[in-house]
């Protein structure tokens, strides 16, 4: 298939893997964080770690929209969904995220009207078709999905739709990366920068990482060769002692981002003073809320949102996994009490979650590679 197979070419991967290995300094360990959950998914789905030398460890970052939603917000969404005449709409990823009283799926089975949509514009369609109902869209995601929520609100405003609102949980990536850089638990050598977010915000916002923290950043695409090439570019920088922001995904990501998308976000949303991230705690200026002039579409204004903070289950170590401090399998309940079918933590729910990716695809690779260590590597 064109535009896909070219980026999954095993021959090219082997050539890149050899170059990457050649750049490893003997005795040095490299920790590279892929910020975005989409990258984590690609890495496991294609078995990319098989190509990396033992010296390079990929650390999975916080860029998984579902993973960072705290349990309290899920409970808030449930409370909204249970209000009279409400149709709650949400992306498929959200359906299995556990709140303290089960997931959207469980609520649906109990009779709450919750529908899965592929786009917030589908929620608008549902709102038009059901004028006697109040349709709420559970908005999640980083700057990647925020523009589509923004456009939906703009369209709802233009149409004068009175029965549509957004429960806004959009978050921003830069404060999360900063929190990780400031975290004493983790020493990283470089970042595989998030590709989709960067199509919107561009590459400039990462410059502080190179400038202030001395870590290289390579914004990467989502095919396995994209990621492998980005690792190669990071290794080139590290071996030359450089720390720059580079754009591997230039076929999609403009250096300055997407001005139209940014404007749409700016028109409809503004920064919250602070927001709770699952596992990472409260981070200032790390999330978006609906602007007061769009209050007619703000579910937090239209409904009574309980806003109760719910502590994560004690055994859940999603926070450590999200920060990259723990590998998924190092969590105490990984794969036993917490599995994709009965997830305790969010990292096990989303296909972009590090735990789900590792459980579904990667449970085997490392042992196989360990057994083969010393030469059987491609």
């Amino acid at each position, binding site marked *: *298939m064109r535009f*896909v*197979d070219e980026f*999954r*070419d*095993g021959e090219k*991967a*082997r050539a890149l893997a050899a170059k990457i290995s050649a750049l490893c300094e003997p005795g040095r360990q490299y920790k590279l964080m892929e910020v975005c959950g989409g990258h984590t998914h690609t890495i*496991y*789905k*294609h*078995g*990319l*770690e*098989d190509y990396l030398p*033992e010296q390079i460890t990929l650390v999975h970052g916080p860029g998984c929209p579902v993973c960072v939603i705290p349990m309290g917000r899920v409970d808030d969404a449930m409370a909204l969904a249970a209000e009279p005449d409400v149709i709650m709409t949400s992306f*498929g990823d959200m359906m299995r995220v*556990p709140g*303290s*009283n*089960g*997931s959207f*799926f*469980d609520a*649906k*089975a109990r009779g709450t009207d919750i529908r899965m949509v*592929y786009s917030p514009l*589908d929620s608008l369609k549902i709102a038009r078709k059901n004028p006697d109902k109040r349709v709420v869209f559970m908005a999640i995601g980083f700057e990647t999905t925020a523009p589509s929520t923004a456009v939906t609100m703009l369209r709802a405003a233009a149409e004068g739709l009175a029965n549509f609102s957004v429960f806004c949980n959009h978050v921003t990536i830069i404060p999360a990366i900063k929190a990780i850089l400031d975290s004493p638990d983790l020493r990283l050598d470089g970042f595989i920068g998030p590709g989709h977010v960067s199509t919107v915000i561009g590459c400039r916002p990462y410059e502080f990482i190179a400038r202030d923290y001395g870590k290289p950043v390579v914004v990467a695409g989502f095919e*396995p*060769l994209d990621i492998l090439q980005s690792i190669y570019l990071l290794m080139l920088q590290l071996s030359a002692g450089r720390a720059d922001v580079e754009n591997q995904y230039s076929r999609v990501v403009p250096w300055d981002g997407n001005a139209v998308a940014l404007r749409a976000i700016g028109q409809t949303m503004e920064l919250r003073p602070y927001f709770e991230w699952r596992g990472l705690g409260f981070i200032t200026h790390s999330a978006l809320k609906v602007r007061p002039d769009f209050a007619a579409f703000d579910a937090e204004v239209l409904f009574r949102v309980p806003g109760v903070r719910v502590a994560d*289950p004690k*055994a859940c170590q999603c926070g450590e996994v999200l920060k990259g401090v723990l590998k998924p*399998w*190092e969590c105490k*309940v*990984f*794969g*036993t*009490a*917490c599995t*994709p*079918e*009965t997830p*305790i933590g969010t990292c096990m729910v989303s*296909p972009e979650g590090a735990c789900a990716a590792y*459980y*579904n*695809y*990667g*449970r*085997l*690779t*490392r*042992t*196989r590679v*360990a*057994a083969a*260590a*010393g030469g059987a590597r*491609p």
Partner: protein
Amino acid sequence: MTAGWVDRALTEHQASEHEYQASEHAHEHRAGERAGAPQPAPGTVREELVLERIDRARRARPRVREDRITMSHGAGGKATQTLIEAIFLNAFRNPLLEPLEDAARLEVAGARLALTTDSYVVSPLFFPGGNIGDLAVNGTVNDLAMAGATPLYLSAGFILEEGFPVEDLTAITASMAEAARVAGVQIVTGDTKVVEKGKADGCYLNTAGIGLIAAGPAGVGSAGPGLAGSGLAGSGLAGGGLNLGVAHARPGDAILVSGPIGDHGITILLARGELDIEADITSDTAPLNGLVAALLAAAGPGVRALRDATRGGVATILNEIARAADVGVLVSEDAIPVRAEVRGAAELLGIDPLYVACEGRMVAVVDAASAGAALAALRAHPAGPQAAVIGQVTAGPPGIVQLKTAFGGTRIVDLLVGDPLPRIC
């Protein structure tokens, strides 16, 4: 799930951990003693232990944790399996049901019969390449064929919603009659129920079917309307009859699929029109009994198991093989036939074609020596020109399906969790 479910899950987990701790310590001790061989990389010994623990958890007796049925219970993945084992098998347990094959194998007055039933709730009722009617006939014919039986007689049960157009019902029954004719079966009994408007979605169908498992060449061709059309007569089966089942898979066996996968599921998804994606794909719904007969004639006793890859797709079948036979399965992404349109749509939607339903494709496990003959027979049949060997059964790791990706890496293919495609059949 209700409040407190996390606590319950954790308590359960801790209890099983305590039970296991002693043996884990023993294992750690053993691992430490493994001298001579290259030392594992730092951290891997503990990872191995975790993987072992997960393996144990996966084999634990299934329990339904939810207090209500969710859509996942019907998706053909893990939740469906849990529901079947924890509720249905638990209630009805008997040796005939226990293998959980597509059809039960019975012996009645000296005859070996296969019996199966299936319900159909597909939405939309009419889709490119078929409708709920031929789907219901083909599905049951295929479940019988997968048991190595010659499908003979079907029943048809209709649950109709008040207000359903008679014209649609006529179209559905005409498709059923035609599908029955093509498959060489007769619909010989039925039932009709009508429910109030809003209590069903137009039309639900149930078909049950009965088929004859050949006792040997002599036993074939003597009875029933199906045999003439099936081509099974004189297939040269060994005396004593076939005993197909995924539990019979052995290391070294080849795994084949009979054609491109995922056509039906993607067709249904696109036919719903919610995605605004258009592609030239039609459902693969088709009877497989002719193809099975050709396969058995060519590879006879070398055929160990047949499964039609419906809900949950090929990935689910591969997992059933690995689990039932306690073997490993290794398949190669490059070798799995998927139409470009299906791949494209699946790629856009973030769906893995391995999990997408087919309604006219089967997975065959064949011993290595017969693999060549089996592949040739499938490809020579009009229903299988794109058949392919996609991988093999391995000794281990038991219960695990591995995929060699086109990119050159290795990953696991697990049972599906969640439900990307409800009401596909």
